[in-house]
Each structure stands twice: as C-alpha cells, then as structure tokens.
C-alpha cells in the first residue's frame, strides 16, 4: 500500500520518516521558488503579513505551467526545480513552520541543521517528469504574487495523491545526497590520484 500523508503535517508525521522512504502527499501544497522566497523574506523583514499560513505546510520548489480558462486556473505540467538555490532561506523556512520541502537535488548543511531543529523533511519529486507529476494535483486553489511571473508566483495546489516522493533528507540529519557525494569523491580520488 502506498503511504499517503496529509497536510497540514504534524511533528509525528515527520519524525517517523527516514531517508529512502517513499510517500505521497494529499492536501494543500504551496509552490515557492527564488522570487517567492525573496518576497517572503522581504515581507517578514518589514513586519508585513503573509498570504498563507505555512505552519505544517508542504512547500514545493517548482515553477508550474498554468493556463487561465473560463472556469479558473488549469495546471499544465509541474516539476521540481533545483532546491539548492533556496538554501539561504533554510532558517526562515524552518521558523515559518514548514514541515516538508519538495524539490530536486537536495540541500546542504544549513538546511540539514534546520531540518533537525525544526523537524522537517526533504522530499525529492522525480525531476524532468512534469507530465507524470501533474496527474497527482487535483486543482489549483489560488495564486498569490502573480506579478512575479507565472513560474515565480506562489501557487496554492490541492493534491489528491502527489508523488511518488522519496525522503532524501530526514529530520535526524541523514541525507542520501551526502552519502552519494562521498562515494563519488572516493571514485574520483581513485581514478585521478596523482602518481
């Protein structure tokens, strides 16, 4: 049976997830990439309110393709963007109460620390599989900050069963990426060790 977790996510939902687990998400998912993160930071700095409540939220590093139709927004395709660009916001995202980050390529030490302190996980969605992933999204609820451009806006998605998502960094400081980076470095040392 596929493991489906529902937003808003609780501390218990997160603490039992470990690297390598495969899950699907149900409920509300927010997209945010470079400009949305910048905008959040800017608003927080100025003491302004945010349009959504990030407590227990799943934030998807993604810039979807969306069409406007007579009946509202319609999702074309959606897939993860490289999460490492959002690394500078690790602390802010943790403080906001975000529980799951969805993206690709993983994040580094600042995020790994934040994940442990705030009880968060990093979920990788299949990169370059945008047609397949769009199937898991039921509809688009609304959009904020559309003036940032379609990819950069904050989209509020409603997922019926979004995934599969692989737990690639957990709340205990484990990271699949770090393990694989270490192995790749060993291979390089072996192949090109100076004589």
């Amino acid at each position, binding site marked *: 049976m596929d493991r489906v977790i529902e937003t808003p996510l609780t501390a218990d939902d997160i603490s039992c997830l470990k690297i390598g687990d495969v899950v699907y998400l149900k409920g509300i998912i927010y997209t945010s990439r470079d*400009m949305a993160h910048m905008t959040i930071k800017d608003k927080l700095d100025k003491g302004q309110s945010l349009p959504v409540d990030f407590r227990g939220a799943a934030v998807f590093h*993604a*810039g*979807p*393709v969306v*069409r406007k139709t007579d009946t509202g927004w319609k999702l*074309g*395709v*959606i*897939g993860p*963007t*490289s999460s*490492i660009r959002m690394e500078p916001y690790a602390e802010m995202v943790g403080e906001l109460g975000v529980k799951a980050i969805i993206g*690709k*390529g*993983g994040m580094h030490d600042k995020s790994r620390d934040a994940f442990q302190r705030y009880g968060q996980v990093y979920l*990788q969605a*299949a*990169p*370059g*599989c*945008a*047609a*397949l992933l*769009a199937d898991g999204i039921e509809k688009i609820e609304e959009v904020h900050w559309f003036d*940032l*451009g*379609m*990819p*950069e806006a904050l989209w509020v998605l409603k997922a019926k069963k979004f995934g599969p998502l*692989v737990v*690639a960094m957990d709340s205990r400081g484990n990271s*699949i*990426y770090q393990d*694989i*980076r270490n*192995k*790749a*470095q060993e*291979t*390089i040392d072996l*192949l*090109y060790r100076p004589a």
Partner: protein
Amino acid sequence: MGKPAKELDVSEITKAVRRMCISANYNVPDGSIQALKKALETEESGVGREVLARILENHRIAREECLAACQDTGVAMVFVEAGQDVRFVGGELYDAINEGVRQGYRDGYLRNSVVTDPLFERVNTGDNTPAFIYVDIVPGRDVKITVAAKGGGAENMSGLRMLTPAAGVEGIKQFVVEQVANAGPNPCPPVVVGVGIGGTFDRVAVLAKKALLRSVGSHNPHPMYAKLEAELLEEINKLGIGPQGFGGRTTALGVNIEFAPCHIASLPVAVNLNCHVGPHESVIL
C-alpha cells in the same frame, strides 16, 4: 557568374522555429529515448531502474498527450547555419526567429523563463524572448535551423577551465568527471555531457553547447575524440550518482565532444550539461 542567390522569406523561419519550439519540448529526442531504454536494461540499482522506467513513462505521456516533458521549457537557443548563397527577404532574420519563439511558447503552453535584466530587475519578459541565437555562414544554398530548449537546472551546473598543455588527456578527464560529480543530482541525471576542447575562452563554451546538439549515441568522427568520449562515459558512470541522483550506474547517457584549434599555450575545456529530456530539433529550409 554563379547562380543567383536563393531567396528565403523569413516568415518560413518563423514558422519553422514556432513548430520546433513546441515539438522539441513535447517529443524527447529518439537518441535519448533509446539510451534510456538501454540504461533500463543495464542499470543495477533497483531504485535506478524504477526511476528510469518512470522517466520513460513520463516521456511517453508527454509525446502522446502533447505536453511538455519538463515544466522547465528553457530558454530558446537557436542555431542557424546559413548557406552563403541564400538571401533572407521579407523582414529581419533575428526578428523572425524571436517571433517564432514567441508564437511557439504561447501556442504550445510552454513556460516563459526569461527575465529582462539578470541582476536588478529580473522581470519575466512574458514571451520567452529574446532567443539566444548563433549564426554561422556555411557554403551552399540551404539554411539549417536547430532549436534547443535549455533548462536552468542543468545549465547552472556548467563549467569552464583554461587548462594548459601539460594537463593533457588526464587533466581534461579529471575536470570533466569532477564537474559531473560536483553537479551531483542537480542537472537531473541521467545527463548528457557536452564537452568543448580547444578554441578560446568564449569559443570553448559554444563548442560544449554545440556538442549537445548531436544526438545521444553518436560519436565524434575523429577516432581519438570518439575514444575519449567512450572513456569519459565509462568513468562518469563509475561515480554512482545514478538516475535522479539516488545511486546507480546510469549517471550519464552519453558524452559528446567537439574540438577546435587553440593557442600554443592553451588547453581550454568546457562542460555543458543536458538533463535526460534535453529537447532539440533541426530542420533544413
């Protein structure tokens, strides 16, 4: 006196660019599909095989349902090889190309991913223009146009180094393999590795990009460079990054090298990566 120049109305170029922007983003190149299928047979990692199967399924759905295979439909790179006996009429060549990109991204529901100013404004241009255009003048009466949609994730993992002659084959290999290792999961492996060797600082980057226009599974006609392509592919696939970066043999589907003469003191090398989608398509007018 030779034959008069062939006239080509630039509206034909607009049409071709429009069509290829859409088609390239919906239809993952055959060479890549074949390489992915082969990788599915040889991949030893269970997770890796699952990922490869999912990628193939995604690319099939995209083709059949006329959807972009990846949401990042990239910046539009347009390479023109213009025969010197062709005269463009009916408008300006660059305008015609940009119009084709504008129409293609609009009509194909492709994502607009270009901002005006890189640093201060970063406002989306709203129609995916300007295209990034390279024009080469070649002999003959044909015009070959190639459209490549270049996504940001893989492009960000590119690198260039001005090596010197003493670095030799080993130096080139180490740089290329390290570049792919450092890129890790970010360029959406399995990747295609475009390598430029020689030329100058600027030229070598273009060589690496042009190498990606060659189909996966093709080889450089020069036997020494073809051998280097094969060796690099083997060494890259020892890194263990694997499909989606979750481990496995299939880190790269292919390595394509293009080379050029260079200064006696130089050995420039550049790496430009394509994800497993790597949309590109050509037409001859």
